[in-house]
Each structure stands twice: as structure tokens, then as C-alpha cells.
């Protein structure tokens, strides 16, 4: 019961992208194609899951004063693993994401959850939190990148959805389109959650 509650928390109530608004750099930078958004989300979710498990296991061994550097080291190790994995198995996507894979290290979501959750909760709860937050981040990226790919090149995951009649809006694939579509999307999410309260 508790597991599900913590899991759901990350998916909607405290969704990292739409509610807390952290981890903005990858959210804006790589969401120009749906596949990039999906891979980036899953890579971040994987790093989040492994680091939360490790940190919740060793939390009693790490002295209070050096906990942040220790967490950063654990995170950086996992990120390097993911980086090399993607370069080996998905070279095309790895080169599209380029800089933003190593930059998962400084994604505030990871250090934030490590400090706020994994360092003071049990392993099971940490797994629930990591899965919720990780998948919450993934669906947010997937939604944003699908919208941008659909409007920017008329396709999703490379499959043409809007036919030849549709003039692609190249602006959606450019930086300006990223800012504007995320702004509208967050406004829309605020609108939905406000209706739910009333």
C-alpha cells in the first residue's frame, strides 16, 4: 500500500517536470524527437533507481559531513556506466543526446531525491520513490518530445502521422519552440490540477 502511494507521488503529485520544475536542461534540450525523450527519461530513471538503492543501503556508513560528495561520486559512477552502455548499444541516439548523458550527474532530480528521500528511508521505499520519480520524468519527456516532433516534423518516433498537407513548423524543433511548448504544457498541467481541486 505504502509502496504504491510513494510510487504515485512521483508520477503526478510531485512530478519533477510539471510540479516541482527541476531537471530543466535535458527537458528542454533533447526533446526534439520522441525517441530521444524516451531514452533520456529511461537513462535518468535507471541512474535514479541504482543510486537510490545504493545510497539507502550505505546511508549509515557515510559520515554526515561528506555525504554530498559521496552521493555525487556514486551518481557519477552510475552515469558513466549508462554513458558507455548507450555509446555501445545505441550509438545513434547517444550522439544525438551527446553532452546531456554525462550531464545527468548534475540533474537536480537525482541529487535531490538522494538527499531528500534515499538518505532517510528504507530500501523498498527508495525503490518505489525512484521508480515513481524516474517514470514521472520519463512520461513528461515523452509527452513533450512527442508534441514537438509531431508539430515540428509531422511524425512521432519517425512514423509520419500528419501527411503531406501539413507544413512542418521548424520552429518547434529549435530552442525557441522548446521553451514555448514547455511553458504552455506546464500552464495546461496547472489548469488540470486546479480543476481537480475544485
Amino acid at each position, binding site marked *: 500500500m505504502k509502496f504504491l502511494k510513494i510510487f504515485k507521488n512521483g508520477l503526478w503529485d510531485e512530478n519533477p517536470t510539471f510540479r516541482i520544475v527541476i531537471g530543466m536542461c535535458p527537458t528542454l534540450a533533447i526533446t526534439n524527437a520522441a525517441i530521444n525523450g524516451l531514452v533520456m527519461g529511461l537513462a535518468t530513471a535507471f541512474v535514479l533507481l541504482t543510486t537510490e538503492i545504493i545510497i539507502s543501503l550505505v546511508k549509515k556508513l557515510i559520515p554526515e559531513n561528506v555525504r554530498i560528495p559521496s552521493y555525487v*561520486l556514486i551518481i557519477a559512477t552510475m552515469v558513466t556506466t549508462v554513458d558507455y552502455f548507450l555509446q555501445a548499444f545505441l550509438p545513434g541516439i547517444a550522439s544525438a543526446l551527446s553532452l546531456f548523458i*554525462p550531464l545527468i550527474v*548534475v540533474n537536480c532530480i537525482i541529487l535531490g531525491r538522494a538527499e531528500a528521500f534515499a538518505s532517510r528511508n528504507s530500501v523498498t521505499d527508495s525503490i518505489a520513490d525512484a521508480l515513481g520519480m524516474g517514470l514521472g520524468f520519463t512520461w513528461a519527456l515523452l509527452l513533450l518530445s512527442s508534441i514537438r516532433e509531431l508539430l515540428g516534423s509531422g511524425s512521432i518516433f519517425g512514423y509520419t502521422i500528419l501527411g503531406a498537407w501539413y507544413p512542418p513548423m521548424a520552429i518547434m524543433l529549435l*530552442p525557441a519552440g522548446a521553451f514555448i511548448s514547455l*511553458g504552455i504544457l506546464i500552464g495546461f498541467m496547472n489548469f488540470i490540477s486546479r480543476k481537480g481541486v475544485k
Partner: protein
Amino acid sequence: MEQFTHILLLFVSTVLVNNFILVRFLGICPFLGVSNQIGTAFSMGLATTFVMTLTGMASWLINTFILEKFGLQFLETVTFIIVIAALVQFVEMFIKKTSPVLYKALGIFLPLITTNCAILGLALIITSEAYSFIESVVFGFAAGVGFTLAIVLMAGLRENLEFADVPGVLKGVPITLLIAGIMALAFMGFSGLIAM
């Protein structure tokens, strides 16, 4: 002379054409979080520029004399993040000792800079582009100037927005993102300026 022109072009292209915030999407967190007032935004920009210039220097030295020499490139991410954290801590201690006035202005922003992805991004770009030492330093400084420019412009716009009647659901982050989108459009005008 040719060298000088090259450095100058690198500077202009990093500040305007490949602006760290609006084109490369690095350092969005402080851009959205610390852009309420021009004063604080400027201090944040100053602190970031300072650390970025030093990072440009340090990352080149470490990459050339340690990572490449001993074939340790796979430790790149781990090394750079530790170096940046140590560097920020060192800068904080140094400023605290030498200039209490500056420390008062920049103090609270310095720890935040460690998790600013623009800094780590800078170090990683320097290694992947194989810049020379001078280029690395200029690149770091120019990236900081570009960051300051964008964040101060944004703060100026947001200060004026205080008096605007923004629809409830768009208040806060969404309207800031929309403004950033329009700013990014404006910065696209620079894109043909220099081909690098």
C-alpha cells in the same frame, strides 16, 4: 594577428551565437530560479563567470596532463565533477578571506554553482572540441558573459512583468518559459553572424 581574430570570433560566437542558456540549454535552473531581480541576477552571473573562467583553465590542464597522459578518459565525468566541487569550495574560501564585501554579494550563490550544469557542460565541451589552453580560457569567460547577459535580460523583463496581469495558471514558471522562448527567437537572429 590571425590568432587574435580567431580568439575574438570564438568570444563573440560563444556569447551571442551559441549562447549557453538560450541555444545550448545549459544552466536553465539558475536562469529560471534566480532571475527575479536584476541585482541578484547580476551577482549570480558574476559568480558564474568567475567559476567558469577558472573551470575552463582547470579542465584543460587536467584533461591534458592527467586524463590523456594516463589514458583515463573514462573517468572524465567523475573527475570533472569533483574538480568543480573542489574549485567552488576553494573560490568560496578565497573570497571569504580576501574580500568580505564580494563574499557578501556572491556568497550564497557559490554553492549553487556546483550543480549548475553549465559548468560541467563547459568542461565536457572543452575536451570534446579539443580547444587549446588560450581557447579554453576565452571560451570559459565568454560562456560566463553569455550566461550573465541572458540572466540579466531575463531579470529586467521579469521585473516589468510584476505589474502585468498574467492569467493565473501561467503565473511563475510557465510565463518565464514563454518569455525565454521569445528571447531565444530574438537570439536566433545572431545565428548567421559567424560561421564557426
